[in-house]
């Protein structure tokens, strides 16, 4: 499904398999050094330095290692991976193959969300072409001993499986319940072997970095947040779709590009991200200011922000895996609180209790879902207090 609107993407200008050809002509340590030098951070949301991750996996002493591409893309408001998989899947597979070369892995898995089943045959065709062209399989590009293949594993409708340890559990045939971290997947991952889990976009950029060099990548972005990033923009804008911007762009610049100038607020980072009011539209989108996996949802002047918070909480109540108490029992309490605010039956004392509960959930939950599920509620409450308080009961 094509994006409603799409800005030109750098991925379209990249020569096919330039990165992979380069990767087989240099030492493994040089691949790792190049990725580290680019300072690229994970594009899936958490922003962990990819070079560090690959180095740890490369250093692990195990003959079996896995490369896993996270294509579970379930964060509300995110759809850029769908576009990358449709238009630039070769680049993603190339990035995975380079990762395999760098860390010493023979087996790759793309975990594709069930909702993207319609992409499956397209992706299988591309994988087969790559096998036919000696870009996957035995002796890749004629290099003796360079053996790697990729298979696709389908998800079955569970947002939590995007969390890397839940994703691994799911591949292993279990309920998608996150594990305790540490140990991290680079150390103890799939079938307890070292496993690199990266986002779709991360792998695609890594292929570009090896092809064009870290210097090329460093030309864009800020000192901390290097390179370009794909954003998924939806909501009250004239041109919703996928956009490529350098890190460090301000919220108002983004709104200018997509036709959302009169927005009253923007949710950055999806349901687990933060709500930014108009007064802060000069802030930068970057790991050091407002960090995001790329989801930008724009709210026009007439949107009811409490209703927005309610929608997000309904999402988390539904998607919590139920494994730990703060998240399983906390989210419904927050949702009930929002409903009370809606009806105008929430005292300030109770609201303060909800705030305290949110803080407990942030520290006591086992995984990112429970740790971030109240961000939107708290930031909406902070910035749109007048809208949230003293409602209903006419």
């Amino acid at each position, binding site marked *: *499904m094509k*994006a*409603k*609107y799409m800005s030109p993407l750098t991925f379209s200008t990249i020569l096919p398999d330039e990165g992979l050809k380069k990767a087989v002509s240099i030492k493994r340590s040089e691949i790792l050094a190049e990725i580290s030098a680019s300072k690229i951070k994970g594009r899936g949301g958490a922003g962990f330095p990819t070079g560090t991750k690959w180095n740890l996996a490369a250093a692990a002493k195990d003959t079996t290692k896995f490369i896993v591409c996270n294509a579970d*893309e*379930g*964060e*509300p*408001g*995110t*759809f850029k*991976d*769908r576009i990358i998989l449709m238009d630039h899947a070769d680049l993603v597979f190339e990035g995975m193959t380079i990762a395999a070369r760098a860390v010493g892995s023979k087996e790759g898995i793309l975990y594709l*969300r*069930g*909702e*993207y*089943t*319609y992409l499956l045959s397209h992706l299988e065709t591309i994988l087969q072409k790559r096998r036919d062209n000696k870009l996957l399989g035995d002796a890749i590009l004629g290099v003796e001993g360079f053996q790697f293949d990729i298979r696709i*594993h*389908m*998800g*079955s*409708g*569970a*947002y939590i499986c995007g969390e890397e340890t839940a994703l691994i559990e*799911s*591949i*292993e*045939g*279990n*309920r*998608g*319940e996150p594990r305790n971290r540490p140990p991290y997947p680079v150390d103890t991952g799939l*079938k307890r072997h070292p496993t690199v889990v990266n986002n779709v976009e991360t792998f695609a950029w890594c292929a570009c970095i090896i092809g064009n060099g870290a210097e090329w990548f460093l030309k864009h972005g800020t000192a901390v947040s290097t390179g370009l990033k794909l954003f*998924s*923009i*939806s*909501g*009250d804008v004239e041109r*919703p*779709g*996928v956009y490529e911007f350098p890190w460090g762009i301000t919220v108002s610049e983004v709104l200018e590009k997509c036709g959302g100038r009169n927005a009253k607020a923007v*949710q950055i980072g999806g*349901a687990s991200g933060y709500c930014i009011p108009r007064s802060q539209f000069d802030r930068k989108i970057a790991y050091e200011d407002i960090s995001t996996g790329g989801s930008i*949802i724009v*709210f026009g002047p007439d*949107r009811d922000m409490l209703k*927005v918070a309610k*929608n*997000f909480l*309904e*999402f988390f109540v*539904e*998607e919590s*895996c139920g494994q730990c108490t703060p998240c399983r029992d906390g989210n419904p309490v927050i949702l009930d609180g929002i409903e009370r605010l809606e009806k105008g039956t929430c005292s300030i004392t109770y609201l303060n209790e909800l705030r305290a509960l949110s803080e407990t959930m942030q520290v006591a939950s086992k995984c990112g879902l429970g740790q971030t599920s109240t961000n939107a509620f708290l930031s909406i409450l902070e910035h749109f207090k007048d809208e949230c308080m003293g409602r209903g009961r006419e």
Partner: protein
Amino acid sequence: MLVSENETLKNNIIKWAEELGKDRTILLPLLQRVQKKYSSISPYAMQIIADLLDIHPVEVYSVVSFYSFLNDEPKGRFVIRLCRTISCEMSGRDRIARQLQNELGIAFGETTPDSRFTLEWTNCMGMCDLGPAMMVNDVVFTEMTPEKAHEIVERCRQTFSAFALQNKQEG
């Protein structure tokens, strides 16, 4: 009659398991195949799978119950899932929801008496730029309007193959 149905189910599961390989990691792909072919995963199917993988049937059940696209209760032949998450809510989800309910005469979470349709909510499907979005089985529909909802339901009522074909072209 029932015996032979169970017999073919069993044979299918054994055949698929052999294709997939026999360790635990095939559980999800195997369940997905059963789900696709039989539109639910019966206790009998779970027992066969448990025996094959040498695990307890309860463990199979716990996996089936975890994933929203797997179910042990039979559902309609067409499972319609409408996205209820924020971007689709803002682009008119409620109008589509009302229209679907009117067309089918059932509420969300229900199956029509003729077992043809099940209507459900789902969460963000990654089509937020093209909302409101929904799925019918594996097929995704975007930029929904009430008229389109009516047409899709009608097409499902006619024949499945024609319906599937038409969507390939759209996609």
